[in-house]
């Protein structure tokens, strides 16, 4: 245990030099790299905070826009609902009007169909009645009926209106005038004579007479004078009855 002053002084110098060397080659480089790493970490943290703040800002902005969109959506939905309600009311009114028209049209159609059916039923009934009457009269036709029809013809000639009578006489006055007598069956001689006499009296002169048989008359007679035709037969009466019944309905 001895203190050597030379060693003491040299060790002081040695340690001071060692401090400088370690500061130069160890502490400064290592602390620098640690500082750089810390700076990088701080920068990364700062960037991360900025990114977080930016993300938060974006999130808030997005939520704000989302809320605005929700409000706009709600307003739009409300408006749309109102429009739908209005449109529904309008269409319902239109539909009801159309339904009313349709009901009226259907009612009119039904009335028309009922009327048509009634008319058709009437026609059928008349046709049936006519057929029945035609068959009945056809069975009843005969000389007796012809004679009574001649009587009726003669009576009608006597009751002709003045203008009709004048028109007949004018037709009979033609130079080539003649009488075309159509009969359902041949008349008795007395009946034919009575008929010719009544015609001559009515027309004011005797005309040549041509007689033809026409079974379609069923019964009675038909007399043609120029353009005029005088009938007292069953077929014409029935046709007249048919046409009159149609006009009547």
């Amino acid at each position: 245990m001895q203190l050597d002053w030379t060693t003491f002084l040299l060790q002081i110098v040695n340690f001071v030099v060692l401090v400088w060397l370690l500061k130069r080659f160890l502490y400064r480089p290592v602390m620098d790299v640690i500082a750089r790493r810390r700076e990088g970490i701080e920068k990364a943290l700062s960037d991360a905070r900025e990114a977080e703040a930016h993300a938060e800002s974006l999130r808030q902005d997005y939520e704000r826009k989302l809320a605005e969109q929700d409000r706009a959506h709600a307003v739009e939905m409300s408006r749309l609902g109102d429009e739908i309600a209005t449109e529904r009311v309008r269409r319902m009114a239109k539909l009801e009007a159309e339904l009313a028209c349709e009901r009226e049209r259907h009612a009119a159609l039904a009335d028309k169909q009922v009327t048509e059916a009634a008319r058709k039923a009437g026609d059928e009934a008349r046709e049936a009645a006519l057929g029945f009457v035609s068959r009945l009269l056809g069975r009843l036709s005969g000389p007796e009926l012809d004679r009574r029809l001649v009587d009726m013809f003669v009576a009608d000639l006597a009751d002709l209106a003045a203008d009709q009578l004048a028109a007949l006489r004018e037709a009979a006055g033609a130079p080539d005038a003649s009488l075309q007598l159509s009969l359902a069956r041949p008349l008795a001689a007395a009946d034919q004579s009575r008929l010719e006499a009544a015609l001559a009296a009515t027309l004011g002169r005797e005309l040549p007479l041509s007689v033809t048989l026409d079974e379609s008359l069923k019964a009675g007679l038909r007399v043609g004078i120029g353009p005029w035709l005088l009938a007292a037969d069953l077929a014409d009466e029935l046709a007249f009855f048919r046409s009159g019944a149609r006009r009547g309905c």
Partner: protein
Amino acid sequence: MDTESIIFTIGPLAITRPVVTTWAVMLGLTLLCALATRRLALDPGRLQTVLEGVVSAIHTAIEEALPGYGERLLPFVGSLWIFIAIANLVGILPGAASPTGDLSTTAALAILVFLSVHWFGIHSEGLTAYLRHYAQPSPVMIPFHIISEISRTVALAVRLFGNVMSLETAAILVLLVAGFLVPVPVLALHIVEALVQAYIFGMLALVYISGGIQSRQNRSSRNEAGASS
């Protein structure tokens, strides 16, 4: 002077074994640090991780004792820890002797600690203010403060010297008395003791330096407390 420990002379200067060993330690440390810190990267390798761990641990210890003085005290206190630890461990190598087993070396380190306490104290608060704290709380305390400064410096030197020398002596004695492998536990104890002594020396130096600096801080705190009251 022990003439057996003189390796060579440079003029009037006798270069002893502890000095040569110290130069070797300095050379090795410098080369290692220069090579290791030549290409430091932000993504560290194993060696860089070790170096950063050592430096960060020393820096953290200083910051815990003296917050805000880590950068300023790191070179001196860190060098004390690293040099003393390696110098203590050199004694384990066959044929080598720890420089810290020499009283001249430990005294030199203790004197440097003594001077650094006053250097950092004066640098921190100025010469007059620093010297004034020796008269606190009363001028009567001045001789006691001086005796305390001297005694703790001597204790610092003798403690390190005594521990390292006794460890080496004990290892030699055990090696002489016992067999070849018996001193292994003693060598393991040597390693632990070498690191502990380095830690104690550096920690005491840090405490002394912080005591010199904190005397001013305590006074500032008292002034702030008085002003606020």
